[in-house]
């Protein structure tokens, strides 16, 4: 305001203009005109700013100026409304400046095929921004407030880390992940990382990137210095995306997106068990969304698979509450898929088998844990428990192995290896028992038939020391009580464990929950990073489950090992299953178990039987013959 600062039109310009229209101006006239032009321009600008203000904009537009001109009875200026700036050029010789104005071929424009589409419909969206005046202090997505507070160094760190993790170098990635997991000064960057992670949706075609992002989640979750706060929700949604969505990568059957889903499920359970308390209602939200996917028949099988492994990862209670009640409805659909032998269906069918396997694993553990919990309840946490729990190892590794149905025949011992979650006793939801174990078993058996039986029943009787006594009655009283641990030890469906070279010690498993240990471990390429990154919590657990680990180490000698091992626990056997005809859900399917009370026999039949199973869970014609067999047992309930 000290001096006038505004553009002035020199009189030379005025004279030039006049010349161009054939008028000769004297010096004074030009000067006067120049001044007047300046004033009029300023006046128009000032007036136009009013139009801008009323249009609630910050940027003065050509339109505003034209309106001001129109209201002052001046001709408006056309042709400057374009969004992009018009270049203003000088002519080399002579003091001439002009706006570059390209000619437009109207014919071409009219006949052009790339007619611009109308822009999107104007609409209104409403969202609750602030609840009770509090609310989302950290807005979803980007965080404007954090931007200012970000120092140069942090910004650099952020760039380096993201570049390393999303880049090609695996070693660099490992280092970055490790640092992310232990760095105590990155709280300010949390929203950015969360934002990066939320990018899973844009890379759903790239398994590798998805994996990297998931590892990033894991590192963040495990960083003890980070308070995730409500970002948990965002992380969970990203992870859930990996679990549930029909990723673009799944289109190609060669892509092993199953592993990704397994890993994500494990991660989910980990987040939930370690940080679930940060967001109220998270558990139920997760359950709900899983359930929604499961109950949506339109979703592809890989989504269903994700839902199942997700439930599984969340613990047997989740399986019991969501998957189990839902099974009858779902089964029909799955069955239809599995029954279709047409070539075109091959891929879908293969996927169906994956789902089948996942369900099997889930319900298996459900039964086991239920049995275990009942046992514990019955025994009142006797001293024998530790032993039993250690025994109740590693039924979990299998899910990944489910994938290739052709491989089922590999050695059973592998399966055992799994590490046992000691905490079975601590299961928090024991009180919820809507379906009795026998009933549940019964029902499940109706679905899975022998594959379930095989996985369950073989162990106990042959747990060498187990007194055959209780088991003897062929009626096969199903005794949920005692020997769940033994069971777990022993039976392992060979084909399920085939592909597993797990490092059972390191699981990203949740604090409280015994089971979902080794899904993560099944991601072969990642095991390294994983093992290095497991939280102290799980570490302590794994040490507590040491006996289990030793078991696993003695995998190859499993046949031997399983005899001595179970003795520690109460020897009582749990299930004796009589096959019986279950007509109600799966018409015409009949199952029978093939074990006998005699230990020697029991050991082998299952395996032999397993060999005969060409297709998991589907016992076709050959089974029919067995219906009337002497071995058939019935299950008195």
């Amino acid at each position, binding site marked *: *305001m*000290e*001096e*006038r600062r*505004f553009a002035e039109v020199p009189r030379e310009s005025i004279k030039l203009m006049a010349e161009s229209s054939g008028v000769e101006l004297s010096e004074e006239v030009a000067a006067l005109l120049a*001044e*007047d032009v*300046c*004033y009029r321009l*300023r*006046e128009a600008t*000032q007036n136009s700013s*009013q*139009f801008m*203000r*009323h*249009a*609630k*904009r*910050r940027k003065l537009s050509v*339109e505003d100026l034209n*309106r001001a001109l129109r*209201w002052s009875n001046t001709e408006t200026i056309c042709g400057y409304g374009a969004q992009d700036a018009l270049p203003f050029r000088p002519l080399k010789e002579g003091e001439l400046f002009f706006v570059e104005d390209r000619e437009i071929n109207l014919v071409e424009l009219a006949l052009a095929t790339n007619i611009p589409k109308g*822009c*999107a*419909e*104007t*609409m*209104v*969206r*409403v*969202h*609750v*921004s*602030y*609840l*009770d*005046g*509090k*609310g989302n202090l950290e*807005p979803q*997505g980007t965080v*404007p*407030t954090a931007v200012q507070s970000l120092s140069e160094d942090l910004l650099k760190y952020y760039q380096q880390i993201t570049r390393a993790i999303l880049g090609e170098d695996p070693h660099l990635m490992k280092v970055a992940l490790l640092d992310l997991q232990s760095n105590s000064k990155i709280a300010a960057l949390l929203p950015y990382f969360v934002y990066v992670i939320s990018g899973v949706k844009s890379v759903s075609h790239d398994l590798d990137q998805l994996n990297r992002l998931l590892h990033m989640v894991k590192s963040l979750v495990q960083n003890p210095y980070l308070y995730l706060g409500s970002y948990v929700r965002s992380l969970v949604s990203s992870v859930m995306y990996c679990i549930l969505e029909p990723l673009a990568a799944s289109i190609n059957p060669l892509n092993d997106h199953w592993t990704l889903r397994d890993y994500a499920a494990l991660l989910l359970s980990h987040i939930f068990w370690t940080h679930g308390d940060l967001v109220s209602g998270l558990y139920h939200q997760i359950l709900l969304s899983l359930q929604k996917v499961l109950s949506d028949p339109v979703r592809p099988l890989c989504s269903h698979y994700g839902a199942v492994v997700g439930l599984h990862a969340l613990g047997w209670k989740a399986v019991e509450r969501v998957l189990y009640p839902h099974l009858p409805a779902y089964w029909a659909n799955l069955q239809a898929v599995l029954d279709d032998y047409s070539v075109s269906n091959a891929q879908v069918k293969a996927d169906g088998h994956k789902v089948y396997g996942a369900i099997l694993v889930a319900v298996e553990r459900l039964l086991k844990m239920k049995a275990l919990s009942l046992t514990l309840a019955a025994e009142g946490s006797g001293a024998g428990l530790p032993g039993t729990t250690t025994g109740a190892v590693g039924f979990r590794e299998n899910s990944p192995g489910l994938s290739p149905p052709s491989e089922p025949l590999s050695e059973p011992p592998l399966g055992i290896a799994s590490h046992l979650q000691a905490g079975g006793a601590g299961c928090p939801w024991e009180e919820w028992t809507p379906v009795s174990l026998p009933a549940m078993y019964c029902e499940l058996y109706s679905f899975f038939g022998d594959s379930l039986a095989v996985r369950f029943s073989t162990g106990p009787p042959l747990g060498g020391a187990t007194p055959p006594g209780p088991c003897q009655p062929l009626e096969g009283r199903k005794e949920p009580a005692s020997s769940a641990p033994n069971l777990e030890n022993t039976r392992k469906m060979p084909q399920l464990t085939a592909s597993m070279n797990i490092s059972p010690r390191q699981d990203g498993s949740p604090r409280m929950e015994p089971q979902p240990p080794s899904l993560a471990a099944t991601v072969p390429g990642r095991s390294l990073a994983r093992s290095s990154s497991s939280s102290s919590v799980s570490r302590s657990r794994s040490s507590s489950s040491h006996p289990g680990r030793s078991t696993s180490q003695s995998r190859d000698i499993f046949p031997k090992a399983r005899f001595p091992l179970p003795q520690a626990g109460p020897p009582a056997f749990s299930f004796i299953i009589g096959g019986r005809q279950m007509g109600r859900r799966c018409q015409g399917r009949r199952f029978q178990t093939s074990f006998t009370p005699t230990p020697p026999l029991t050991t082998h039949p299952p395996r032999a039987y397993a060999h005969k199973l060409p297709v998991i869970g589907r016992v076709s014609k050959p089974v029919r013959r067995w219906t009337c067999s002497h071995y058939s047992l019935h299950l008195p309930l």
Partner: protein
Amino acid sequence: MTPLLSAPGEKMAAVQDAPMELDSEKETKPEILSDGTSNLSGNTASGTLSSPPLTAGGAPKQEDQQTLIAVLQFLRRNKLTESVDILRREACLEDQEDSQTLDGSGGGKGDGDGGDANSLLSRVSIASAAAPQSTLTPIPVKNDQPDVSVVLSAYSQQGDPSLYQVYYTGLKNFIESVLDCHRAELSQLFYPLFVHMYLELVYNNHETKAKAFFEKFSGDQECYYQDDLQILCGLTKKEHLKGNEALLDFRTSRFVLRISRDSYQLLKRHLQERHNNQIWNIIQEHLYIDIFDGMPRSKSQIDSMSGSFAGETRREVNKAKVFYGLLKEPEIEVPLDDEDDEAENEEGKPKKKKTKKDSMGSKSKKQDPNAPQQNRIPLPELKDSDKLDKIMYMKESTKRIRLGPENLPSICFYSFLNAYQGLTAVDFTDDSSLLAGGFADSTVRVWSATPKKLRKVKSAAELNLIDKESDDVLERIMDEKTASESKNLYGHSGPVYGVSFSPDRNYLLSSSEDGTVRLWSLQTFTCLVGYKGHNYPVWDTHFSPFGYYFVSGGHDRVARLWATDHYQPLRIFAGHLADVTCTRFHPNSNYVVTGSTDRTIRLWDVLNGNCVRFFTGHKGPIHSLAFSPNGKFLASGSTDGRVLLWDIGHGLMIGELKGHTDTIYALKFSRDGEILASGSMDNTVRLWDSMKAFDDMETDDFTAATGHIPLPDNSQELLLGMYHSKSTPVTHLHFTRRNLLLAAGAYNSQ
């Protein structure tokens, strides 16, 4: 021209013959001639010498006479009580007034007072009496040596514009040398003097002098006059002045200053001592000095009230009684089960559907002493549907959340997406069921904010087929085929700057750049009426809380009151010196408030069209206004990012809420008036503790008399919360009947 000039000259110069000033007149006449009559009033500023007669004799003489007489009376009244010193001053003033309003006051005192006063008086009368230098100059000349130049300059002031700088510097030096307590007050003089002197220079074609003057002194002005200075600095030619209505207004209207008596005397003494005629003339002619008894005000107090285009408020302007109370609630029994019996309980008298607060019982029974007569202005009768709505409202209000500092409202944000064409205005219905947006592409769009879709009424032919006796006839007349979430209304030919729903949700008003206000039916979604009257862009419009009336304001600097069934306005509220940017109805519908680009707020009486309140203090154009639900208070927001709170009854500023960093486009009180929400271009919504702000201020008649009260600087304490949107400027705010805060704005992707 000569006759025009001489006409007043005859009146004045009946006493003082003026043939001798012929040469000086030669200089002035052509200009005046070129200006024509429209500039007659404008001339007042130009020649301190020649203008007074013009004012007296020109077109606006009546008004000026009236004000002069009023001033005269005021001074006379004062004369009775003041000391001799003051008396003397009064005398001289009076004489001056008399000479100015020769016809009005008829003579006044003689010029022959002795001594000091006499000399001053004579100079004054010289100045004001159209250069009668021949008769009167000798007196001052012989009295004071240094005065010669002064008088000469006064006589040929167009020829000696360089002295302006001297005068101004002299005054500046004086003001800077006085005691602190007076300095702040007297500093108020700088800006109006500066502008008037500059304009005078420009007007008299002293372009280079004007530029030099501007450059020398523009830096001394308060920063909040920056915008005006920018306009001024571009203006260097008399021809330019002609087209600039705002500045013409500035010249014709008197800039109001409020100065304590002590400071004023100080100033006056100084001017007398220095015989600083030029300045004194300007003060006399272009400024109105509102003298009050009491402590001089502090700098901050002055700053809080100044900034407007026309100076401060004269105290007497705000003396009129304002019936700010709410009208009596209609007696509607809230039926607990059956909705039908309430119709019979209705009295025949016109009932007021009031958007009012909590208890429907005792409070509404008793007439508020500050409320206007129920039938002070005719209001539409309550229809059955209005009664039903009223019942709904009462039911809703029982579920209302009580807000307070500990209990802040939840905020829902309505984001307009893909609004590339530019969202310019938003409104919600009172029950929050509908949402309207005005856009820069001339369209108005209405959305349903509930799952209920918008439906048109069937065509006339189809309506004929309907069984009119059926119970659900209201449902049957709707055309299900047209159900959609939103409807577009086409009709305007320029950006839509204001939208407003009628309280019964049947109509929508929109005002546009094309100079019209349109009334749309929300039954048929067609335009019903286009109200033409503003011939310039209409910036805002607002429905009365009782329907039927609405107000609009625009670029033509007036606000108009309309009734929906009249194609011409019922009232024209004229007085603002610049565009009327914002209009709102008082909750009792008897008053209308307008905010303007001249940075003032005026409250108008709908009954008689008078301006009953005039508020200054904003430093930028006012873009939002809101009445408190009880009608007692007013909040205003402007481009300067400040919210000011006003006590309507006493006509006082009672609070200043600082915090926003950009224009405030939305203001709203919660339903109970406890919280004030403000939304701004800076992408934030802020909540203020309005209860505390109002309670802390003790306003009574005594404080009202002084016209100002000390304002605490407690914005930070009053700020209850600040909430960011995601790059979405807040265009509109609305409290639902249960006190949920709805905000609306267009998402801005850059």
